């Protein structure tokens, strides 16, 4: 009987988790096929004729409200901007962060921990504290409104995150495995590339996904440091609210579309995430 009670509790836990975390998501998805009239009801409508108007509008960038006005959205450009900013940031972060994480994990060197802590401390410099001076300097040196500048600033968010997560994974790899590879006649770089990185892959994958999400969702840096030409979806989606309506369906639709790239990335990465480091002898 004891087994059954545990099993029941487990099922209940699954249901509770799915309800709390996924019901709002399902509802957002649902709303993206509704008109505002259907969304804004005292008693929610469950059966309605799904409309693709929101999706079409987003894609075409032009939403005509008959006999009233035409609303323009730049969502496609926002989406492209988000992609450029996020992919760019994560790439730079991987390039800079993975070797640094390795060094912190593997070597004890003078000032090493200080450097690691300093890098972490960038993470807790409140954005509000630095944003105005940053804007001032970027304007002065002509970096205002450039992808380059934003990708640079995004490193403050993504780099420490990746560094401190991946570092732990490198620490879990027995150094002997790398030494063995060196003794086989491979250079440091080869051992780093073929041994250390593959073995830390789940950590790198998880960290990259999180970095991507944080870059994708960033709001304030892009808003202040860029013109509307390079704004990501987070800023762009706010412009759906007009003086004549809060188009919740459109907002929901924007959320669905803006989440898709991240979701696809997560599905792609999940192979590494769930694979885990189940390789047994990794810890020496």
């Amino acid at each position, binding site marked *: 009987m004891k087994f059954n009670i545990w099993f029941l509790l487990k099922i209940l836990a699954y249901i509770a988790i799915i309800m709390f975390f996924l019901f709002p998501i399902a509802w957002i998805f649902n709303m993206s096929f509704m*008109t*505002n*009239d259907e969304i*804004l009801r*005292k008693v929610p409508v469950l059966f309605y004729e799904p409309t693709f108007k929101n999706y079409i509008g987003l894609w075409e960038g032009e939403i005509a*409200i*008959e*006999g*009233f*006005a*035409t*609303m*323009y959205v730049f969502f496609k450009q926002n989406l492209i901007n988000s992609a450029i900013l996020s992919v760019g940031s994560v790439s730079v972060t991987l390039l800079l962060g993975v070797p640094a994480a390795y060094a912190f994990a593997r070597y004890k060197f003078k000032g090493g921990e200080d450097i690691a802590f300093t890098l972490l401390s960038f993470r807790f410099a409140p954005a509000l504290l630095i*944003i*105005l001076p940053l*804007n*001032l300097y970027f*304007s*002065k040196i002509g970096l*205002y*409104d450039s992808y380059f500048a934003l990708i640079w600033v995004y490193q403050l968010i993504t780099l420490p995150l990746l560094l401190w997560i991946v570092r732990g994974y490198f620490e879990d790899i027995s150094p002997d495995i790398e030494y063995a590879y060196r003794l086989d006649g491979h250079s440091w770089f080869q051992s780093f590339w073929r041994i250390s990185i593959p073995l830390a892959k789940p950590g790198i994958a998880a960290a990259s996904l999180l970095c991507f999400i944080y870059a994708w969702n960033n709001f304030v840096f892009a*808003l*202040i440091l860029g*013109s*509307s*030409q390079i*704004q990501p979806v987070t*800023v762009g989606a*706010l*412009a*759906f*609210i*007009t*003086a*004549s*309506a*809060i*188009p919740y369906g459109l907002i929901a639709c924007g959320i669905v579309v803006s989440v898709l790239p991240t979701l696809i990335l997560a599905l792609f990465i999940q192979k590494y995430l769930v694979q885990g480091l189940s390789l047994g002898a990794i810890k020496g």
Partner: protein
Amino acid sequence: MSHSKMKSAIDTFLKGQMSRRDLLIKAGRYGIGFAALTKLMGMQVTSALAAQDFDWKKHSGTTIKLLMNKHPYMDSMIAELDNFKALTGMNVEYDIFAEDVYFDKVTAALSSGSSEYDAFMTGAYMTWTYGPAGWCADLNDFIQDSNKTNPSYNWNDVVGNLRDACSWSGVAGDAPGAAGSKQWCMPWGFELNSVTYNQRYFEKAGMKPPGDLVEMTDQAEYFTKNAGSNEWSYGIGTRGSRSWATIHPGFMSAYANYGLTDFENNGGKLKAAMNSQASKDFHKQWVKMISSSGPANWSGYTWYEVGNDIGAGASAMIFDADILGYFFNGNPDNKEAGNFGFHGFTPNPSASAPTPNVWIWSLAMSNFSKKKDAAWYWMQWCNGPENAMAGGVKHNQVNPVRESVWASGDFDDKIRGTSPGYMEQYNSSIDGSKIHFTAQPLFFETTTEWAAALQEMQTGSNVDETLDKLASKIDRMMKDVGLA
């Protein structure tokens, strides 16, 4: 060719010698559709301007950049922008940001002293910050300079209260528009705070729009009490977020209607006046109304939720910007679109007319601009009489700031056609409308604190004590900057 005949017809129309209806009839006769007519009209306006004794091409080839808020005004400007480009040979770029973040963007951009943007949208209150900070150019330097301003611009055509509201001397307590004021911005479109109500609901309840604040409270209570069996959910929509935006619309309009002021001005020294007995009584009435029959989540309500609720039929009436009602009434995506009535509201039983506080979307010129003269070309075009007319008649530039637009039959037709009662609301309110706040540098600090105090009162704090606390807090803030 019919086009040339049509052009002359348009000229006649533009000179005010032909009504819009006649023009449309003529166009129909020549087989010209509405779209083509619009285009033709734009061209004709442009050519009319181009014919002036004014060098519109002076800045040909110059590119200016605007920082704009996402707004119907902006949309109507963009729709006409090609005409400006054709007229001047200039190029115009613009950055548009959502209203939620727009002013943060402006503050960041201007505080950096960057010459990125030449002109931008602003509210009058914001220039109480931007002006003293040295971010805005004084537009008097341009308006008064006949070399820079085209002869038909006619600044005095702009509603006087609004022109005043957009200027200030920078001295705390000085009224906007008083002697020594600098024209920090110029009005582009504005809002009066009045009552918009759901006619269907009011008919069903057998009511007329409220005559004063007490009646409004009673009516709102009726709607809230009877929400269960009806479509609506509550009686009265007003803003309630912890922000200056909660104070300036309906609340301030009503406050002023009772003859109350935010500060006592003793020769440039300001003393908070929110805790006068009359003010306390007013607050009690107001808090009673929103507590008993405002939205259940009032303390988070922003303008777009106020609009959304009446648009979706949740609230029976709102006391907020008239254009909010106008726009939500016009957008057929809203369930209750077309059902709204408009009502110039006099909260104080002993007052004779409404005294709406105004919100003015304005245009300002960045003091850091390296192309001020060129930017001015765009500005005088943008709210010049021709474009204002085009915006008012063809687009959604409501409320227009020029008397000439209000006087035009076409605009009148359009408004009466789409929103019955709106004109009456406007006419009854406009004379008493102005900025009822005391102009002073801590406008945002004091109004935000005020809103926070309102929230506290709404959730049960003692009104008298809360207001005393608020007043002493504001006095302290004033003292810190040497104004008390």
